[in-house]
């Protein structure tokens, strides 16, 4: 009986449509997420090689593409995939920091030739956005969010000159150091080419001594750089493409801070060669140069016009950004190496340049840009108008500086930010920052802008002061200004600010600080020597060769007077390069 029913049951299959997918006449749609053949968007790919590193089958090989130019944060390598190895797991996609790599929904390579299974993926097999195995910042293995540096409360910190940052805790530092993939693209961003992956890895292993040891290879001021560096490395970091770069700078500062005595790690050179070198200016370039000279047994004597070492590190950067303790620690260690400092000795006045050149085996010029420029608008002659460089220098040296309650700072660079925040700390109630271009055009780093804003600085962009109005007794009462508009010109890289001269407005101001740039001081060089040096077109920078030697035999130069980047880390890089050049010039074997 049961069997009979089953017979009828079977009848229903007569009319049912067969579920066979009649490939190839009928296509079965592949799932959206299917992991097929690789697609690589070369415009996004930076050739960091993380895909090759994670591949469990060693299917990915990084091959050099001769037609590509390596750029900052980018190599000319591109992944080549061997489908004789690939297992289509998609981990390369999930680890790709830029999101250039994906697996498409195409899956077929059928061939009799083994060679067809190995190629460099590009957009050829792309199945379109939203299909295939893609990875965004959420689904990636990587964490695109950095550990933010803890800061003091803006309302509190603007009252004093103490350090605004609180520093990482060990836990935070190691958590951040974990993110480093070791791809070393950041090294290209660093002027002095520090061993960033190595020292971050040492931090990850809590081996701070090893970490500092790596830093000293090409930077004798690691903790200073770990506090105030312009961190170009972070712009080259692979995370920077889609998220926040690793806190390379603060990690460096953290590790250096964990080692109280560098002597134990780096040691003090006992070498003596009898050669001696004079260095003009005690800024980062000279410090770095002197350190590496002393490491090779060359006596280094630094001539400095001021009474304190550090150059712009000391005089330009306010103490709330770079505490005195850090400066002391690092410069003392350089002193310990046997570098001689002659403070209060202005070359050209207290000792002539010729004498230095005669007495010493080589001379290094690291005088920097320390003369502040002014705008040249009516009313700027007189009291209560400062240039930022002088103001910051006086504050740093502990001189008494009096400013008013309503301060106008002109400029948009880092120095301008320093000036605004210093003004706040000097007791100003209202600080206005005037900049002629847009907010995004400001050369100051984002974090300094944010910090200044948090402390209450008002940003008035696209404004141009035209006149400082004084009352009869000479006090400033007003500043007249006009607004500007941004005009794009054919062929120009960025829009130009054009002032709208017919609409003049005013601010109530009693102090003006101009932070519109600095220039070098060549007064110590006699005319004869100055002619022998070769300058660039704008008569600002000295041109040097690969060993940092100027056109005068035995005279080397570095820092702001040479390189256009004008930051501490470039100066340190120059100093080190010059030291190596001097060592080579003096014929000392290393």
């Amino acid at each position: 009986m049961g069997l009979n029913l089953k017979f009828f049951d079977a009848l229903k299959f007569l009319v049912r449509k067969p579920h066979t997918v009649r490939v190839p006449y009928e296509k079965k749609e592949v799932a959206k997420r299917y992991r097929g053949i690789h697609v690589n968007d070369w415009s996004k790919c930076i050739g960091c090689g993380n895909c090759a590193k994670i591949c469990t089958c060693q299917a990915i090989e990084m091959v050099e593409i001769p037609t590509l130019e390596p750029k900052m944060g980018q190599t000319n390598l591109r992944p080549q995939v061997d489908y004789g190895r690939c297992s289509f797991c998609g981990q390369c996609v999930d680890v790709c920091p830029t999101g250039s790599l994906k697996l498409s929904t195409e899956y077929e390579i059928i061939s009799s030739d083994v060679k067809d299974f190995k190629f460099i993926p590009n957009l050829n097999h792309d199945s379109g956005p939203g299909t295939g195995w893609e990875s965004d910042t959420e689904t990636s293995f990587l964490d695109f969010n950095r550990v933010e540096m803890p800061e003091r409360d803006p309302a509190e910190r603007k009252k004093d000159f103490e350090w605004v940052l609180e520093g990482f805790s060990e836990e935070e530092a190691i958590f951040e150091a974990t993110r480093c993939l070791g791809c070393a693209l950041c090294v290209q961003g660093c002027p002095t080419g520090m061993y960033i992956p190595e020292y971050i890895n040492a931090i990850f292993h809590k081996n701070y001594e090893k970490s500092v040891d790596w830093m000293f290879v090409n930077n004798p001021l690691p903790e200073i750089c770990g506090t105030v560096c312009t961190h170009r490395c972070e712009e080259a970091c692979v995370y920077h493409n889609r998220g926040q770069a690793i806190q390379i700078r603060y990690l460096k500062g953290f590790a250096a801070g964990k080692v109280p005595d560098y002597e134990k790690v780096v040691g003090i050179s006992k070498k003596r060669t009898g050669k001696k070198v004079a260095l003009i200016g005690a800024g980062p370039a000279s410090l770095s140069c002197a350190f590496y000279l002393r490491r090779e047994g060359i006596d280094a004597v630094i001539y400095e016009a001021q009474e304190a070492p550090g150059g712009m590190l000391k005089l330009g950067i306010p103490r709330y950004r770079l505490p005195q303790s850090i400066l002391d620690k690092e410069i003392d260690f350089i002193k310990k190496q046997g570098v001689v400092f002659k403070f209060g000795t202005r070359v050209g006045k207290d000792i002539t340049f010729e004498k230095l050149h005669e007495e010493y085996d080589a001379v290094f010029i690291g005088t920097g840009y320390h003369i502040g420029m002014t705008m040249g608008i009516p009313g700027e002659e007189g009291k209560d108008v400062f240039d930022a460089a002088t103001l910051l220098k006086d504050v740093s040296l502990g001189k008494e500086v009096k400013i008013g309650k309503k301060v106008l700072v002109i400029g948009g660079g880092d120095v301008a930010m320093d000036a605004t925040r210093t003004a706040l700390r000097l007791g100003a109630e209202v600080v206005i920052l005037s900049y002629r271009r847009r907010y995004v055009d400001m050369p100051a780093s984002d974090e300094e802008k944010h910090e200044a804003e948090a402390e209450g600085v008002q940003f008035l962009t696209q404004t141009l002061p035209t006149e400082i109005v004084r009352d009869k007794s000479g006090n400033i009462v007003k500043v007249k200004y006009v607004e500007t508009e941004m005009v794009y010109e054919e062929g120009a890289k960025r829009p130009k600010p054009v002032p709208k001269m017919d609409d003049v407005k005013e601010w109530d101001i009693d102090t003006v600080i101009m932070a519109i740039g600095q220039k070098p001081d060549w007064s110590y060089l006699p005319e004869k020597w100055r002619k022998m040096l070769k300058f660039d077109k704008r008569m600002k920078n000295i041109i040097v060769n690969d060993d940092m030697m100027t056109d005068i035999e035995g005279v080397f130069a570095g820092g702001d007077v040479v390189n256009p980047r004008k930051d501490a880390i470039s100066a340190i890089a120059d100093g080190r390069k010059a030291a190596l050049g001097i060592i080579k010039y003096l014929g000392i074997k290393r």
Partner: protein
Amino acid sequence: MAKIRDFDYEYFIGPQHPGATGNMSYHVWAEGDTIIKIEPNLGYLHRGFEKLTELRHWIKNFPLILRICVPEPDINEVLYAMAIEELNEIDVPERAQYIRIIVLELARLSAYLLYFGGVAGTIGLYTVPQWTIGDRDYILDLFEELTGGRVYHIYQTIGGVRRDIPEGFKERVLKTVDYLEKRLKDYDNLFFQHPIFEKRAKGIGIVDKDAALRFSVTGPNLRAAGVNYDVRKKEPYLIYDRFQFDVPDMYKDGDTYSRVMQRRYEFEESIKIIRQAAADMPEGPVNIKIRNPFEYRVKEGSVYVKLESSKGEYGFYVVSDGGVKPYRLHVRGPSFSHGLQLVRHIAKGTNIADISMILFSLDVCPPDAER
């Protein structure tokens, strides 16, 4: 190749799939058509997984480890993730746990469908594999949609799953399990109540309770012998303790028929679990960030984790020395117990014609025994 010595035969079954989902051969000595001795001969699929895992970072082992068991790869991934999570004391997000349950149970369904087809194939009911394996493809379609791969999913990661479920996926899962439940009735007519099957399978290849315990048999084979042991109930891993399901216990004979029917009823229970998991699934994240795959470390220690696969208790013994790579990983495949020692015991005295059905009904998977 058979050598004739008087009335004894000596020959190999295999290595061409001797009623097992993989290459493996059984060296058989027979008298007439009665087997007097059987000796498993392995090594056709030994790839040295345990060695390979020691050479790779923790995360890199996910694409590798699941290849141990081809019919049901997900268990390997989940177990490996579970081992790491236990050693590192990671709390897996709720949603990921539910997704894992759905994946595991779908994998069990697909493995059982393959099993039904295989058993039926060994006794000549060739329509059954056409149906079951055809229907299994719908589960593979679901997997493809969810994980991006048909068979090898590589979907698990440390602390969760790699992607969230796509939109409308739950509905499609429910639709597919509804369909499969309906199809079970067709299978009943075609296979489970088929007189040929009943005649061929009843009383054949008996693994009684004593033998099952003696040879450390686990899983459905043990349950078909009347021992109610299911890891999901005894030591609930993931979140199995939240679901209402039964472990069928109406079959106690331990013969081939019981083993097949045991799985047929477990099939229904799995569908129940999937429905509950789909209904209860909370919103939220599906994984944790491991931050740096190349520096991911697992705390020093050793752990034995196990779960209930379609073939029995599947276990990983993982040793970590605190480094970026596993120090040792031992895979305890269920087939190591019921595919080797048990077969030596039960095959004696059986008919040659039945041996491949018996082997298939045990669900021997050589890859998990050999690795």
